[in-house]
């Protein structure tokens, strides 16, 4: 029996190698192995036979490791609750614009709300890009798989927040511009920068939602966002004098789109 414990110990160590950073999963599978062994013993098998049978039923350690690794490639699911929560900002923005225009109130409130929404949206987009990029930098074995997937979920939620807040902000800005400027949209660097941040954040979100791909590839797409968001934002702040900012932002987002396309190809 002591030999059998050594065998189990060896099996557990092999499994732990295949499931790095998941001691709880290894323990869960060991409990399963022991339960199956007990069944074998009750059926009259010798301890060694019971162990071999239980091990075979559970499956090879490498195959198990591969199955768990496939979890990393699964798309991050979004719940209805999250989507509804994120829908509040655009709905509130539309309500504010409608009420302001219908009652003929001072449209400056739209410009202020636009600035607030855009700034919050950019911060959320930047957070998404930073968390997503971290996944590419931290070595696989240094981060528990569950934690790695949690980071991906955080990236998705920050991206979504960035998208809806920025879209709502841009929408209000357009309403304000339609009232105060010649046109709602005129491709100024300020507007181009904002639009590129939206595209960049959408790409960061999309690659997290696609099945397949690796953390490194997804992280590289997010890393482009780490550059695109501040560059687009600064371009926006420097307004009419910042054509180079917008040009740089276009280049970064183009690179990001190429990387995202590669992710899609491997998916």
């Amino acid at each position, binding site marked *: 029996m002591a030999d059998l414990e050594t065998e189990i110990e060896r099996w557990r160590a092999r499994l732990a190698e295949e499931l790095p950073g998941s001691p709880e999963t290894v323990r869960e599978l060991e*409990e399963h192995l022991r339960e199956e062994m007990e069944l074998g013993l009750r059926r009259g098998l010798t301890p060694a036979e019971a162990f071999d049978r239980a091990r075979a039923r559970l499956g090879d350690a490498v195959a198990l490791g591969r*199955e768990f690794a496939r979890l990393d490639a*699964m798309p991050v*699911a979004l719940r209805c609750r999250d989507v509804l929560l994120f829908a509040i900002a655009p709905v509130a923005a539309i309500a504010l614009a409608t009420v302001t225009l219908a009652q003929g109130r001072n449209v400056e409130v739209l410009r202020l709300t636009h600035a607030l929404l855009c700034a919050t949206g950019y911060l959320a987009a930047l957070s998404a890009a930073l968390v997503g990029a971290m996944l590419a930098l931290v070595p696989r074995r240094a981060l528990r798989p569950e934690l790695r997937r949690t980071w991906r979920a955080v990236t998705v939620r920050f991206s979504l927040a960035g998208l809806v807040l920025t879209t709502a902000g841009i929408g209000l800005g357009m309403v304000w511009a339609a009232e105060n400027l010649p046109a709602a949209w005129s491709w100024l660097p300020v507007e181009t920068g904002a639009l590129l941040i939206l595209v960049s954040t959408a790409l960061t979100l999309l690659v997290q939602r696609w099945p397949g791909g690796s953390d490194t590839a997804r992280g590289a797409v997010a890393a482009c966002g780490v550059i695109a968001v501040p560059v687009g934002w600064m371009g926006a702040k420097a307004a009419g004098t910042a054509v180079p900012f917008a040009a740089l932002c276009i280049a970064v987002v183009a690179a990001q789109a190429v990387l995202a396309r590669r992710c899609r190809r491997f998916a």
Partner: protein
Amino acid sequence: MKLAKELVAASTVPLVLSILEEGENYGYAIIQRVRELSQGEMEWTDGMLYPVLHWLEENGCVKSEWREAESGRRRKYYLLRPTGRKLLADQKAQWLTVHETLRRTWRLNHG
């Protein structure tokens, strides 16, 4: 009769959720229940259940907790959550649609 690997894989989530709808359960017992319900027709490699359970947990469909059984063995129990119930209802509708379509088709072909 040996079921196709793809079919077994596709039915894993609705099966696991259906068993958890009967009440909380742990991995080993879930596999025994599948064996019992399928009268031995569905054979899983036991270990392949766990990535599915973990995926369901990470996506808020089930939650888990370690508890000590009367035998002294520690087991990780899985409980169905509202998101899991919704997913099950959705999967049930899809599988029933496939089932009904096939039933009608075969009745037409053979009837």
